[in-house]
């Protein structure tokens, strides 16, 4: 009786454990599938605002326009059709809401029933026009030419440089500057955090007395517990003005500020993991080195660090992983201008900051919304590459130890 009960209990616990692992796996798969499904749908949509069309006069000779050309037209950087291979005719911009400037309410009809007809009329009599209006206002005998807008392609998405997801009439979805910004800030963070973290880890593992270590270690781990908003605030108030006056810059919100903050945030990861790696060096090896007449520094330099090499690399890469995905602190200190960075003293915009700042107002299911999910996919791929690298390096370490 007692035995069967015990068996039954065991089975139940087994079942619960199995269920939890299944749920965890399913959740991960679900999130990834959802992310990529939403992200992929971007490439099935055109960058023009949903339900709207762009049309020109029937006599217009200009060919297909790219998203960038359309933006430049509506920003009035291109003001004549001949710049686009058309006739020598100044470009006349027309938006739906402008219609009331040219027609009275009576002419538009009490229930706006004449709007399609008037729109058509206006496009027909204005040779240089480019009109942006809802597709349901296309008149049944529309005489203008509707511009075909191509779907967003993956290549465009990754290589275009301008990020104006809310630009009207056609959004500019180029994420190159965002990807480079993310990598740039993370790279800077690791440049700062790795030497500092490694030095701390060596000190704690090899030099510090037990008492110092017992104080130092929890203190460093406490760094991981500070909310990232607090880091961001600290960065904006303290680090940004310091950088500005130190380098004599016009603006202190730079990639460097982001890198410093992220470097501090990555420190606990790097210190803890590389210290653990350093401490796995067998005492026999260290003692052998000392017995051969090497001093303490030589032993650390030639024996301990090489032995822990792959552990230190893993620490660095995990630190990068932490930096790549960090949102809030970066959002507050890097200035968020979507430009391709050339030095550390320029503002940058990172992918997580973009998603956090824009998702709230992007209309659900719209093109902007999908573009942000596609950005999420890119971020996911970046972090998975980082994780796989860690996996690869630590498996190499295991091999090395077993040989």
């Amino acid at each position, binding site marked *: 009786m007692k035995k069967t009960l015990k068996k039954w209990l065991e089975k139940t616990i087994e079942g619960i454990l199995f269920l939890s692992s299944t749920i965890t796996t399913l959740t991960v798969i679900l999130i990834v599938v959802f992310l990529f499904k939403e992200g992929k749908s971007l490439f099935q949509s055109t960058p023009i605002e949903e339900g709207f069309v762009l049309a020109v006069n029937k006599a217009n000779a200009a060919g297909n326009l790219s998203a960038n050309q359309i933006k430049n037209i509506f920003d*009035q950087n291109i003001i004549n059709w001949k710049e686009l291979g058309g006739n020598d005719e100044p470009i006349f911009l027309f938006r739906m809401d402008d219609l009331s400037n040219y027609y009275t309410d009576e002419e538009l009809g009490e229930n706006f029933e004449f709007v399609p007809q008037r729109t058509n009329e206006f496009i027909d009599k204005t040779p240089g026009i480019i009109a942006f209006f*809802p597709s349901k206002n296309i008149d049944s005998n529309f005489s203008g030419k509707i511009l075909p807008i191509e779907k967003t392609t993956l290549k465009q998405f990754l290589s275009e440089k301008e990020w104006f997801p809310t630009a009207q009439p056609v959004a500019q979805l180029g994420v190159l500057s965002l990807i480079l910004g993310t990598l740039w800030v993370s790279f800077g963070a690791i440049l700062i955090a790795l030497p500092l973290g490694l030095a701390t880890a060596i000190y704690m593992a090899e030099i510090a007395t037990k008492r110092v270590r017992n104080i130092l270690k929890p203190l460093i781990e406490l760094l991981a517990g500070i909310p990232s908003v607090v880091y961001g605030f600290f960065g904006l*108030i303290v680090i940004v003005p310091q950088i500005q006056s130190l380098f004599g810059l*016009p603006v202190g919100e730079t990639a460097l500020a982001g890198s410093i903050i992220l470097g501090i945030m990555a420190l606990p990861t790097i210190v803890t993991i590389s210290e653990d790696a350093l401490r796995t060096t067998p005492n026999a090896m260290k003692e052998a080195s000392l017995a051969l007449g090497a001093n303490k520094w030589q032993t650390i330099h030639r024996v301990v660090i090489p032995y822990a090499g792959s552990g230190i690399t893993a620490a660095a890469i995990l630190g990068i992983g932490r930096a790549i995905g960090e949102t809030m602190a970066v959002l507050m200190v890097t200035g968020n*201008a979507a430009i391709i960075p050339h030095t550390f003293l320029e503002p940058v*915009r990172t992918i997580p900051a973009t998603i956090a700042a824009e998702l709230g*107002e992007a209309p659900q299911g719209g093109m902007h919304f999908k573009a942000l999910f596609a950005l999420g996919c890119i971020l996911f791929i970046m972090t998975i590459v980082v994780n796989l690298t860690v996996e690869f390096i630590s498996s190499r370490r295991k091999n090395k130890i077993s040989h």
Partner: protein
Amino acid sequence: MNFKYKAILSIATLFAMAFTQPGVTLKIKGSDTVLPLSQKEAESFMKKNPTSKITVIGGGSGVGIAAFLDGTTDIAMSSRKMKMSEKMKLQDAGKAFKEVTIAYDALSVIVNPNNKVSQLTREQLEGIFTGKITNWKEVGGNDEKIVAYSRESSSGTYEFFKEHVLSNKNYGTSILMMPATGAIVQSVSQTKGAIGYIGFAYMEKTVKALKVSYDKGKTYVEPTVANSKNKSYPIVRPLYYYYLIKDAAKVKPFLDYVLSGEGQKVVSDVGYINLN
């Protein structure tokens, strides 16, 4: 025993509130700019009329008007006029609506207090924020790089500034995007060549507000509440409530309160410009 008694009493009170005195139950949704104002108005209205229940939800002007179209909100609050496309959608659904201006909001253009420039024309502002003017000496200042701060594209203020000051052109790529108005004030106060825009309610002594000209430099107007009221200051927008005419009776008590002297006092307390 005591607890039970209290519980019964409070449930009874709830029932009494729900059934004996049906107060106003309203849902207000929309612009995040109008949100703090509507919340304060709703709070003080409910204090006076304890039986009424007003729920205020943000999300942006577009979201509010979309909810209005679906019929999931009684009042849509908006920091911009309803667009023609939205009007036509309402028209299609056979819904007649009314627009009420409840307050005004004005933006000031701010620079660092050490900047010797104290006035700019709209065209100059357009040049600065579209990235065509990059040095203060081009607009009469020192030889110093211009650092322009804007709100994020999700903000209604971003759109308002784009429409009214940049004449619908896109911001330049080098413009710095800040997540909050407070961050703009902080950055402008500590950056020598900075320029930014903020709502009147956020004005602080650590930054300097510019005079603005909308007539190509003939007259420059100081951003003050008085100038906004007499319409001489140009960067002002009305804040609207939209409601359906068939809901007029339901909405009236609250609307009347907002437009009353007391309600308009709340407007200036929150930092907006009242109607009178």
